[in-house]
């Protein structure tokens, strides 16, 4: 299927990946969603805005076919304040639509689940932070009332286990409600939004050139991916040509971010299966990795390294050599550890079949990114919508069919080796030139998008700036929105003690989701 088949009036946008944009009527909104769903398209994200003239607009981005994106805007009447539901076609839209209601007070007409999502009762029901009449700084003295209506499971011997938002370990806050019989999980319901910080509104206090700093703090583990996605949108709007060397340096940072997170996860997943050796070995490698980040990029997590026009600093030949050398060292170590993981029967016994998401379910629910690839969904923005420098790199996508913890571990091992290969190639063939385009901020208004494959999956940014260089609206989308609901399915039938292991094998972002 092509975008042309949808018979909508759309314009191709001058982005670094194929993206067309058009305005739809309510009828077109519904028929486009139906046609895209029937032709195995994916929902990337859905959000809403209020324009300065008061007009509400709901926007959705679809992945039509392996990287060709369609951005649809649906202007809606203020007095109606509703738009046609698409969650019956794209289950992943459910929570996004509930979030739209919480932020703007406009309804998905026909949606079956209309419970609040980001709003936990800490501010009045009729307060909508993204509306023009509000500044986002209003402080409610309302005492938080926690009366969220969880779905209950009835039957003989069924009981509930409530976990969170404060968990046993050092992890982000979220609430999990298990309905169990004995040890077996019958149903899991997640409640998120605890780390909601009002970021969508906070972006409007930033100038376009400074917004990358906030974008880089959506989810600290993906700071490079977020800031690149943000900068890509802004550079598209301002038609900035970023030096090739800068793009290559961004890719070095992005692949290093991927490796750093995969190393940490491989250790933590081993640990959640009772294999402390794995944690201690992989955390040592991760620490070595972060220390080189610090000495070469100036920050252990590489925060604020990517900025509009390029990257903050160049890497000298000595730094490039160290990066190259570390890739070789880490590769040998990870090979050894992979052998130990693969041969450890106790570990494999916990990994295999735990938290299985079959491909059919993954496709239906819209599972994406690393977890999607472990369930046979062959999608990776670096491959399907490769922007420079990935268009020259020919990334080998890692796809596994198992859909279980073992498959998510295998994809991580594959991707560590592939990223090490890419980093070596990038530093050995780094083009000469500047690491940053020196230019004054433009004063042209407009909107555009960025799409970057973070270690977890695709991170999409939609940015709208005015002619004074101020952000009008910035929507940043974390792949965790798609993947969180899938965990509720992945755990069904597994025992409760497998939940931490399964959850860690996805390792989704709370902050990136809650914003």
């Amino acid at each position, binding site marked *: 299927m092509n975008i042309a088949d949808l018979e909508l009036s759309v314009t191709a946008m001058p982005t670094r990946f194929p993206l067309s944009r058009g305005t739809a009527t309510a009828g077109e909104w519904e028929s486009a969603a139906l046609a895209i769903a029937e032709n195995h398209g994916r929902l990337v994200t859905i959000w809403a805005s209020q324009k300065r003239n008061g007009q509400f607009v709901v926007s959705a981005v679809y992945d039509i076919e392996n990287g060709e994106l369609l951005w649809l805007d649906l202007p809606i009447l203020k007095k109606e304040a509703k738009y046609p539901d698409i969650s019956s076609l794209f289950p992943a839209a459910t929570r996004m639509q509930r979030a739209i209601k919480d932020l703007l007070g406009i309804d998905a007409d026909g949606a079956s689940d209309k419970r609040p999502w980001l709003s936990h009762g800490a501010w009045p029901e009729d307060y909508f932070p993204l509306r023009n009449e509000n500044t986002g700084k209003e402080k409610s003295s309302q005492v938080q009332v926690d009366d969220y209506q969880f779905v209950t499971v009835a039957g003989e011997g069924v009981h509930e286990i409530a976990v969170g938002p404060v968990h046993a370990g050092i992890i982000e806050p979220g609430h999990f409600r298990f309905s169990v019989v004995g040890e077996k999980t019958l149903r899991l319901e997640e409640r998120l939004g*605890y780390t*909601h*910080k009002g970021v969508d509104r*906070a972006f409007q206090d930033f100038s376009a050139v400074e917004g990358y700093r906030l974008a880089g703090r959506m989810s*600290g583990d993906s700071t490079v991916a977020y800031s690149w996605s943000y900068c890509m949108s802004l550079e598209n709007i301002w038609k900035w040509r970023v030096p090739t060397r800068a793009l290559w340096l961004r890719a070095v940072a992005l692949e290093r971010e991927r490796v750093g997170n995969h190393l940490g996860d491989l250790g933590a997943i081993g640990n959640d299966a009772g294999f402390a050796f794995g944690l201690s070995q992989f955390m040592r490698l991760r620490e070595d990795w*972060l220390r080189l980040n610090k000495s070469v990029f100036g920050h252990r*997590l590489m925060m604020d390294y990517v900025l509009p026009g390029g990257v903050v600093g160049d890497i000298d030949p000595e730094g490039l050599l160290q990066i190259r050398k570390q890739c070789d060292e880490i590769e040998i170590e990870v090979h*050894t550890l992979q052998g130990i993981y693969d041969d450890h029967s106790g570990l494999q016994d916990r990994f295999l079949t735990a938290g299985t998401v079959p491909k059919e379910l993954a496709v239906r629910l819209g599972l994406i990114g690393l977890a999607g690839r472990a369930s046979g969904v062959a999608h990776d923005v670096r491959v399907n919508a490769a922007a420079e420098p990935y268009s020259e790199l020919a990334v080998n996508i890692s796809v596994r069919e198992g859909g279980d913890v073992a498959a998510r571990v295998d994809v991580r091992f594959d991707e560590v080796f592939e990223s090490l290969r890419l980093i070596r190639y990038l530093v050995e063939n780094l083009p000469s030139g500047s690491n940053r385009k020196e230019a004054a901020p433009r004063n042209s208004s407009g909107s555009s998008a960025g799409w970057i494959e973070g270690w977890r999956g695709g991170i999409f940014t939609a940015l709208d700036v005015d002619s004074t260089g101020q952000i009008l609206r910035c929507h940043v989308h974390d792949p965790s929105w798609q993947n969180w609901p899938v965990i509720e399915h992945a755990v069904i039938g597994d025992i409760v003690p497998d939940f931490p292991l399964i959850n860690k094998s996805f390792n989704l972002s709370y*902050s990136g989701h809650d914003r």
Partner: protein
Amino acid sequence: MMWPLIRQISKVGIATEKPPLVQDLVASGRIQDEILRIMGRALTIREVDAGSCNGCELEVNALGNVYYNLEGLGIKFVASPRHADMLLITGPVSRNMSRALAVTDEAMPAPKIVVAVGDCAINGGIFGESYASLGGVSKVLTVDMEIPGCPPESFVILEGILSAVRYRLKKRPD
């Protein structure tokens, strides 16, 4: 199967580094001994993410790796606030987490040490104050020690934790 494992362990050896020097604390001997003297037992910490971007969590988590070997210093993170001496908080306090944070604080036995980790926990950081964010931890709890940074590096957090213990020593001399 055990052989490659043992070989790897012996190849790596002991990677633990020297802990940071904190005045008055390490001068008189091993940190473990000092903590034992002050606390009468191991220092136990309950960590709460009150709305962080997870950057601080990554650096707090890294304290458990072999280089910092936090548990080797007699410091450990515990699951229950009832077992904790120190409340270590990251992130701006989101409205949605403020109640859970207060409940965690109430569950901790007194005397306790409250430490704010990272710029957000100190003053709201880049997220500031809004309808959704209350700002720094001091808006809701009395903070004994602040550890700045975005995020503060693991080593700096360790220094801060040790300084907080020292602060406790000064506050309540034994």
